[in-house]
């Protein structure tokens, strides 16, 4: 899939893989935010509509696979390939930034809890780490509790609706009897 990407699309995708926002990418490449979004949408179409985090994960896997094979990622050429460091309030320590002027794409060495450190892992890093078993069991219990709550709420609602309907029918049956009593009196 990545072989079919244009240089500009690769440039944007590399920055998406660094967890940069569209605004940050637009500022770094000196283009409009809508152009960035347009390029990302083109890539998404090629990737059968994969969401942005999935694209980032795929690109990182691709780069890691190339590194493992001893190849380097196709260097980005031209002035726009120089990606300056952006100091924004959204910067977090768990997102690695490439060094300034580094035109090749680097694979982040560490990941957050939500982004797996093992590139081949498709579950969040926390579920694959040393506490993974415990967390997975906790997750199963939490999901079971949520499902139970939903079903029990549905049952309660259905029961109340049935009671309301029954009350309405009782009242309809009782009304003609009452009116007959009144006319007799």
């Amino acid at each position, binding site marked *: 899939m990545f072989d079919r990407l244009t240089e500009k699309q690769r440039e944007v995708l590399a920055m998406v893989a660094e967890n940069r926002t569209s605004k940050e990418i637009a500022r770094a490449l000196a283009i409009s935010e809508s152009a960035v979004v347009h390029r990302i949408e083109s890539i998404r179409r090629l990737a059968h509509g994969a969401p942005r985090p999935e694209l980032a994960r795929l690109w990182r896997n*691709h780069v890691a696979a190339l590194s493992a094979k001893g190849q380097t990622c196709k260097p980005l050429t031209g002035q726009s390939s120089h990606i300056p460091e952006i100091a924004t309030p959204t910067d977090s320590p768990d997102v690695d930034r490439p060094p300034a002027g580094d035109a090749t794409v680097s694979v982040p060495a560490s990941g957050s809890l939500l982004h797996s450190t093992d590139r081949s892992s*498709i579950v969040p890093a926390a579920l*694959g780490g040393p506490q993974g078993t415990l967390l997975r069991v906790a997750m199963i219990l939490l999901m079971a509790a949520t499902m139970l709550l939903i079903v029990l709420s549905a049952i309660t609602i259905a029961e109340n609706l049935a009671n309301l309907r029954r009350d309405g029918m009782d009242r309809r049956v009782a009304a003609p009897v009452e009116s007959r009593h009144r006319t007799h009196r």
Partner: protein
Amino acid sequence: MAWLPGAPALALAAMALAWWFGSAPERLSAAAISALLVAETGLGHMSAAPWLYLGLHGLAFAALLVIAVTANRFYPMVMAAGELIALVSHALVVAHPPPGNAAYGLLIGMAKHVAVTALCIGLLAHARRTTLTGRYPDWRADQRRNS
């Protein structure tokens, strides 16, 4: 609870697809659910005691729990969660036999629908990932290192 309309066909299709196109976790999950459904149908024909159902669901939950804990997938956790509800419901039926309460039937029948839906979604996600990135690990990284 009986199957919803169209659910048995979907279940059969999911099992077949899991066996042909799925990887190890998909095949094992599908095998566990298939065995459970076949055995449950058999017990239904024999009008077996509730504790037999409890044992059956206990075995299915244990199998799904092992897969959920070791697989490099998310959907077995959903399947195990659904099966846990069925297990608890059967335990309640054994402890306090309900006087024809439909709620128990709903809770017990929900598990198979949750399992089949989760398996279908898991299979689709697996097929998509395989198309985009090729083969990827079936099991957790630390499990792979241990084995």
